[in-house]
Structure formats: structure tokens, C-alpha cells
């Protein structure tokens, strides 16, 4: 068995999964399954949110250890599903190591067109407005904030700015839109509109995953995820605060919270 190739393939699968937002234990599990096909005496896979280490150790040969730094993480279910399928097929012996390596390397990220993403960005705030106690006016206003953030996200992705700044800019846009809509239609519940508007940005899933990792005993990943969630929340809150403050400053006395 080629230990090096197996370790490389396992870490590639792990890297794709971790960057797509899979849970820590699932990434470790998948890599361990691939590593175990080497038939070596001892294999280990360790995942910390910002990096992966795998090692294969056999008395007859030198130990193979591969390490990978993970810098950016998002959520991409398509990749998780695909890696899951590929690794299951490989572990069942249906495909060869070279084949799955090729499949992993050629995996593409995006499934939908930009239009679909933009439509989805509008749909999420509009759909959440009723849950936060909004009526027809709030649904419409939330959809408008969704349009604003869709425009900002599309523009931001083209210029390639970092996610912290992009989140902040989107939140500024949402806050400014909400305040202006409130000035135009005073009966509007601005809090509902803002909360619905930031739903695609806030780290609700991230904090829940952080607690899940912590409960499972993955303390390093759990702690890192908690920090990540708070940094994202900070970017959104700073944006909203700055947005509201700047509009009321420009329009002194006219619009207040």
C-alpha cells in the first residue's frame, strides 16, 4: 500500500469537508475510514478548526505525517454530500484510490447561478419576518433589505474583500435601509426588519455547532468556533450600529430609534 497517497487523499477529503463547514467529528471520522484502508498498525487523524494533521504509522516503514492549514471556512452542503458519497464508495471497495483522488481534486464548488443566490438572499429575510412578529409591511421591508444585501454581497464578491468587512458593509446597508423605510412608513417595526434582514449573516448555526463540538469533547474546535461566531456577530453589530448612527446623525432629530 502507498501510505503517502492514502494520507494525501485523506487530508484532501478532510480539507474539503472542513472548509465546507462539516462538524469536527465527522471530518475526523471520514479521514479515519480512508486511513484505515491502508491496513497499517496505527492511524490517527486530528482536526482543529484551523488545521488538520494525519499520520500513518507501521512498524515496517517510516511514519507518514501530513499537515494542512485551513484558512477560510464557509458552508457548502454539496461538497459534504459528495465527499461523503465518494469516501463511502472507496471504503466499500467500489472505486480505486487514484479515482477518488481525481474526483476530490476536480470537485466544483458552486451549484447555482448568481441569480439564484441573489433570489435566495431576498427570500431568507422575507421568510423570517413573520417568525419575528412581522406583518405584510415588515415582510415587504425585509425583502427590500434582502435586495440591498444581495447587491452588496454580489459587488463585494467581485472586488474580493474579506468576509468581516463584507458582513459589516451589508449590515450598514440593511440598517440604513431599515431606518429610511421607517421614516417613510412610521408604523413599521424597525427591530423586526433589522433582525430579519441580518438572518443570512448572523452566526446562529455557528454558535450551535460550537456548543455541539464542545459537548462532544472537541474542546479546541469548540472554543475556536465560539470565537469565530463572536467575531462574526461583532461585524454585524458594528455594521448595524454604524448604519443607524450615521443616518440619525445626517438627519439629526428627524429619525430616532
Amino acid at each position, binding site marked *: 500500500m502507498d501510505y503517502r497517497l492514502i494520507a494525501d487523499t485523506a487530508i484532501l477529503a478532510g480539507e474539503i469537508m472542513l472548509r465546507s463547514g462539516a462538524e469536527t467529528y465527522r471530518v475526523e471520522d471520514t479521514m479515519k475510514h480512508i486511513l484505515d484502508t491502508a491496513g497499517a498498525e496505527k492511524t490517527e487523524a486530528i482536526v482543529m478548526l484551523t488545521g488538520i494533521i494525519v499520520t500513518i504509522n507501521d512498524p515496517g516503514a517510516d511514519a507518514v505525517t501530513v499537515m494542512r492549514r485551513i484558512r477560510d471556512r464557509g458552508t457548502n452542503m454539496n*461538497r459534504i454530500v459528495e465527499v461523503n458519497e465518494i469516501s463511502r464508495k472507496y471504503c466499500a471497495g467500489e472505486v480505486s484510490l487514484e479515482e477518488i483522488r481525481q474526483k476530490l481534486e476536480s470537485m466544483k464548488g458552486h451549484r447555482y447561478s448568481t441569480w439564484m443566490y441573489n433570489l435566495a438572499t431576498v427570500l431568507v429575510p422575507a421568510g423570517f419576518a413573520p*417568525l419575528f412578529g412581522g406583518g405584510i409591511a415588515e415582510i415587504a421591508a425585509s425583502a427590500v433589505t434582502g435586495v440591498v444585501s444581495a447587491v452588496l454581497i454580489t459587488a463585494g464578491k467581485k472586488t474580493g474583500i474579506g468576509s468581516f468587512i463584507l458582513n459589516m458593509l451589508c449590515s450598514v446597508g440593511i440598517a440604513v435601509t431599515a431606518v429610511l423605510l421607517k421614516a417613510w412608513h412610521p408604523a413599521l417595526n424597525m427591530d423586526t426588519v433589522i433582525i430579519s434582514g441580518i438572518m443570512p449573516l448572523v452566526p446562529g448555526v455557528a454558535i450551535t455547532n460550537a456548543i455541539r463540538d464542545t459537548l462532544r469533547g472537541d474542546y479546541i474546535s469548540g472554543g475556536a468556533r465560539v470565537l469565530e461566531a463572536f467575531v462574526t456577530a461583532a461585524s454585524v453589530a458594528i455594521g448595524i450600529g454604524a448604519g443607524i448612527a450615521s443616518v440619525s446623525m445626517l438627519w439629526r432629530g428627524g429619525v430616532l430609534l
Partner: protein
Amino acid sequence: MEVLLGAAGCFAAVIGYSILVETPGKYILQAGAAGAGGAGVYICCLQLGLGTVFATFLSALVIALLAHTFARIFKAPVTVFLIAGILPTVPGAGMYRIVYYMILNDRSQTAYYLLQTLEIAGVIALAVFIVDALFRLHVNIRKKGA
């Protein structure tokens, strides 16, 4: 009426979120159904006068059950349905409020939302955990029986 509107809204919102996180097309409707079911339970519980945390716990249980059932029926990882489906109950607004009140220098509100958010995230994790364990038990018993 409120329950229906809330659930329908969450169905649409979860479908939108599923697209944002690149869920394959054949699983999107199921994720939406899991989210709508959870949101329905959540709003019902609130109307019955239960607390936010307990309502979240019950709705997370329902979502996790639905997600595990769908995962078994449609042969996909549980995460695909769980992450999108759980979105309505997850404390995203709470996370925002913590930092927002921190910026406004309002200590008591910050502490209140910090505790509430950790409680909500905790009970969701607990609910997911319980359902995970139940399904694993089920699999283990079947394996032993076979």
C-alpha cells in the same frame, strides 16, 4: 393563523438558506419541511405560554427527528437537513444583540442576551445530541439482532 404564516415563511426562508449553502436540489424541499415543522412547533409552544428556551428545545427535537428520518429515507448526511432546518430556532438574533448592546455599553442587556443565547444554543445542541443517541441506539440494536 400566526402559526401557519410563521411556518410558511420559515419554509420559504429555509429553502432560500439551503440554496445559499449549496444544498443539492433534490434535498431542498425536505430541508424546508424540517424547518417549517420546527418553526410551527416553536410558535405553538410560545402561544401556549412556554418559555423561549423550552420552546426552542421542543422545536429542535422535532427538527432533529425530521432530519434524521429524512437522512435515512433519502440516504444523505444528517447535516444537510439539520443545518438548514435548524435555522429558524438558532439564536442568530441573540448573538447580534449581545454585541450590539455591548457597543451601546448596556451591561445588563448584554448579560441577559449572553445567557439567553448560550441557553438556547445549549438546548439545541442537547436536543440534537439526544436524537443522535436515540438513532445510534436503534442502529446498534438492529445490528445485534441481525
